[in-house]
């Protein structure tokens, strides 16, 4: 039995992650080169403008904060542990993380309700979108569940998930770090890998084309066929 669960852990927390990562990198790069046209989220604000606000804004601000929390705990776990040395600070971190998690989930439920209730929106919703919504819903719900029923995640993440992820990154996977975690946490991790693997085939690719250059580019854009100063053709 332990033998079987060991192999299962190897499959789900070593094989699946690597397959997902390969798919993620190859898929996003290939799609950017071959399918540039579709490299965005298909915005539906034009078709429905009111409910859009109540779903999109809490979801996006929530998920950005929650993901940033995960990223910090993964990259510099010691900083979280240092912060948590005083109980009050630990409480503050836990409560605000849960608040943002709930905000994300509520926002996402609003997004789902909006999608399902509007016939115009159903028209622009693909099968891939529905699969993505199912994965995202599971990820958010399991995340909030873990936050409520397995508290102090900011503390144990740094000593379990973080070393596990680092072991994957260093190409010497140590599945032991997560083997003993509760089933809800394991499902949350597994679903995260599924999301990463599925990422290139969904509208999530819009995350990769966030338009930072806008902040420093010149306001007006003029494209020349012929450089006006040198009277030579512009090569593009």
């Amino acid at each position: 039995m332990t033998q079987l669960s060991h192999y299962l852990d190897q499959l789900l927390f070593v094989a699946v992650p690597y397959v997902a990562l390969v798919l993620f990198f190859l898929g996003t790069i290939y799609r950017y080169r071959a399918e540039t046209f579709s490299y965005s989220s298909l915005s539906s604000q034009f078709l429905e403008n009111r409910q859009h606000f109540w779903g999109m804004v809490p979801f996006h601000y929530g998920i950005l904060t929650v993901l940033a929390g995960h990223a910090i705990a993964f990259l510099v776990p010691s900083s979280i542990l240092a912060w948590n040395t005083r109980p009050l600070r630990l409480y503050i971190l836990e409560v605000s993380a849960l608040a943002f998690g709930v905000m994300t989930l509520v926002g996402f439920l609003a997004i789902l309700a909006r999608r399902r209730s509007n016939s115009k929106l159903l028209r622009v919703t693909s099968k891939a979108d529905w699969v993505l919504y199912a994965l995202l819903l599971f990820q958010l719900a399991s995340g909030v569940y873990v936050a409520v029923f397995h508290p102090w995640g900011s503390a144990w993440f740094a000593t379990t998930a973080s070393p596990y992820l680092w072991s994957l990154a260093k190409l010497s996977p140590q599945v032991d770090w997560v083997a003993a975690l509760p089933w809800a946490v394991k499902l949350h991790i597994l679903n995260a890998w599924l999301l990463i693997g599925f990422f290139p085939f969904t509208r999530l690719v819009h995350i990769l084309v966030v338009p930072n250059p806008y902040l420093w580019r010149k306001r007006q854009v003029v494209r020349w066929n012929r450089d006006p100063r040198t009277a030579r053709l512009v090569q593009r």
Partner: protein
Amino acid sequence: MDVRSQVSMVFHLDKCIGCHTCSIACKNVWTDRQGTEYMWWNNVETKPGTGFPTAWEDQEKYQGGWEVKKGELKLKSTGPAKVMANIFHNPHQPSMDDYYEPWTYDYENLFDAPEGDDQPVARPVSRVTGEYMEVEAGPNWDDDLGGSEIYAANDPNLDALTEEQRQQLSAVERLVMFYFPRICNHCLNPSCVASCPSGALYKRGEDGIVLIDQKRCRAWRSCIAACPYKKTYYNWHTGKSEKCILCYPRLETGQAPACFHSCVGRIRYLGVLLYDAERIEEVAKLPDEEIVEGHRSMILDPWDPEVVAAAKANGIPDDVIESARKSPVYRFVKEWKIALPPHLEYRTLPMLFYVPPMSPVMAGKEGDSVYHFTDGNLFHDIDQSRVPIAYLAKLLGAGNEGLVRYALRKQKAVRLYRRALTVGDVDEESAARALREANCSVEEAEAIYRLTALCTFDDRFVIPPMHREEAIQMIEEPHGHRQSVGFGFTAGPKRGL
């Protein structure tokens, strides 16, 4: 001096009959694809009226265009400071409800309906969902003042009028309207271009046509709120924004754009203008009282040797300079000063100009008979015209009534001059006085008359040689580029799985 050339336009509103032929020509050529059904790159509005999309001139609602804040030119909507915070939900973006839900009719039912007691009907079917729908709005819903008590009453330009003037507008014997055809203005300081987070919108250097790179557009939709004329549209099917392309594939082959070509009233003129690009920011910042004159002063004289030298230094070909000299737009805008840009107070420096419309003289009612106001003043009916000067000034003069009055006086003087010549019920002395008072010589009156009334195809459309062929010719083997450029999709516009 940084001389650039710009394909520019004049619409002569006094000649527009509101037939929508231009809109149909454009629709048939460019926007009959899925996702574009609701778009009207060219549309014709009735003024007073709220237009398309509803109340597009209400910049409190849509936050289009630019504003000057502490001496700096800023986008009213999502400039760099606000773009990231608003990227998940654009607070100023119009929705389909502000345009209309496009529909077709269930024509098959007319043929296939089972036999019954009633005539079968073709019910409207949504072109978005494919379901039956109730039609609640359309692209020219208040056409010819239809329902104007409800619609036209919300026209933002009516703010310029006194309560009395507003009342007069709807009195039956004084009722008035005119048509206002609109396409993209291909502005010199386009706020759509400046607002695009992805940098997908651009102005073509050689001819000033503003385009959206369909492959770089990532559906952030900033341009739609930022364009104060609402002439960029979101394609809900492809997730890309689209806009009037001034039929550049036609222009590049020496043909007039479809809406120009098909214009029944021959109201449209097209030609190249040379302008000083160095002054764009300075002019866009001018106060409302000076901005129209400032905009006009950016347009350069193509005969001036200094301008020609600077144009050549910038690589503008000789035949384009030659074309600028023949441009009908130059004559209307710069020489005669009778064409004015729409809503210059939005500060995008539009390059489509309108000749303000003459309206029927003001009438009054005595008992059962209607009479027209007349007295010795030849221009009486201009200041007393049914469309108040203040209204036209809000629309075309950034609020400057003098500029509109000047343009109307000159048109009126030309009419009197021609009347004296051909009909003879106006004496020559009054005609000569009218011309003098309108600052118009006999030669000028004759030229205005010819270009207004007798203009041929080649008079109206002086299309500059675009030299786009050189883009490929000199670098690559042209044969290998067959069908690789132009408008449209080289791959299917599909997305996702």
